[in-house]
Structures are given as structure tokens and as C-alpha cells.
């Protein structure tokens, strides 16, 4: 398994989370994204590359410019995991309710 394909790799870094937050506003060019950070363009570009490899962002070629946009479906994967975990605790606690009634 290519670890870079893991969506959790995308959110495992504060700069990458900031880029993802930025892209919720709309698609942006790498230059526009880099303009929001103090780090070097190369460093930001590397983060964008990792986000693309994780499938968290998609490329959009518009004329001569490449825009990056959020891949909403991929980001929803995290929600699915969390939803299952939430459901597990909900069910456990409902079972606990029943047990407490009988104690």
C-alpha cells in the first residue's frame, strides 16, 4: 500500500490543513496558495504535491494556469470513519442504558 495515498497523511501536517482550509473558499493556483504562507514556494509546492497524491486535491487546467481544488468526496472518507466510531459509542451507551435499568 502506498502510504501517500492515505487521506490521513493529508491532514497530518498543519500547513497542509491550512491549505485545505484555504481551498474551501475556492480553487487556487499554486502561486496564490503560496502567497498565504511564510514558508518558501518550494515547501508549499511540496505540500500541494502530497495533497494531490493523497487525493485530497484535484488539478484543474485553466488556460496556462493550474488550479487546485478540494476533492470533497475524498475528504468525506474521514467523516465515514468517524461516523462509524461515533455509532459504535452510541450503540455501546444504549446497551449500557439497558444494563443500568436492570442493575
Amino acid at each position: 500500500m502506498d502510504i501517500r495515498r492515505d487521506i490521513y497523511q493529508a491532514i497530518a501536517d498543519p500547513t497542509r490543513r491550512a491549505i485545505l482550509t484555504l481551498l474551501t473558499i475556492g480553487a487556487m493556483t499554486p502561486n496564490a496558495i503560496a502567497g498565504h504562507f511564510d514558508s518558501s514556494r518550494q515547501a508549499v509546492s511540496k505540500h500541494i504535491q502530497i495533497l494531490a497524491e493523497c487525493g485530497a486535491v484535484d488539478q484543474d487546467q485553466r488556460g496556462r494556469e493550474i488550479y487546485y481544488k478540494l476533492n470533497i468526496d475524498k475528504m468525506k472518507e474521514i467523516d465515514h470513519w468517524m461516523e462509524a466510531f461515533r455509532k459504535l459509542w452510541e450503540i455501546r451507551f444504549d446497551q449500557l442504558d439497558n444494563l443500568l435499568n436492570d442493575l
Partner: protein
Amino acid sequence: MTNNFVFETDLAAKKIHVAREFNAPIEKVWKAFTDPDLLEKWIAPKPWRAETKIWDFTVGGISLYAMVSPEGQKHWVYAKFTAIENGSAISSTGMFCDGDGNPVLDGPKSYRDTKFSSIDGNKTKVDMVITFEEESTIKMFVEGGFKEGTIMTHNNLDELLASE
């Protein structure tokens, strides 16, 4: 009855907060969390069941139980108790296990702080904060829940289809 169930995730802080109110006095809720015979009765989502192998409820002590599927598949859950305030709080460190229930000591860990508080003398609030060492391991820990959640959903679906 409203039970004020809370499930909040803060992935940036690597924290999951779970809270719930129970319509029972704090002594009973505490017992249900700390008596393995009682814990077994609610911790595994049906039709899974829990089988306790080790229960040493002391600071530095260990709990090890298996979630067992109807087909006999085992999913081990290991925790070491790091702090106990009798009747009000439990802290533990969770670790992954191999197929025989041996903890992977140098593997990723999760930390759980559970607090119990009495409401009006006959209700109890349970507050749980689960913290992960690394964001990338949240998935690994949640995966257990995901698998059980998926299996549960399928079973519920089977029941639903059978009753149609």
C-alpha cells in the same frame, strides 16, 4: 429521555470527545465501567460479545478483552490504567494487539481520560476524551470501530431484510 450524547472530533488537536448522560446514580455507572462482568455486557456491540482475559483495575494494571464476532473472529482491546480516582475518573493508555492479544509495546498509542459526575444525585454524566499520539494513527484506532460498525450495520440490515 434526552441523554445529551456528544461526539466531537478535533483532528488538529488529535482529540475525540465523547459524552453521555445516564439515568442511574454514579455508583452504578462506575460499577458498569469497572466490574468486568458488567463491562462485558455492554462494551461489545451486538451481535459481537466481549470476553475478558485480564482485568487488573489498579494503577499500572492491565485490561485485556476480546470482542468476539458470531463467527468467532477476535478483535483484542488492550489498555493499561495510568490513573484511577475511585468513583470519579479513570485514565488509560490503549495499544494495539497481535492476534493472540499481546500488546505491540512500541506501536502507536491512544490515551483515554474518562470522568464521571453526578447530576441531581440520580443521573450521571460520563465525559471521555480520547487523544492520539499521531494524526496518522487516528485511522488505525478508529478502524476497529469502523469494522465493528460496518459489521453491525450489515447485521441490522440482515435483520431488517429477514423481517420484511
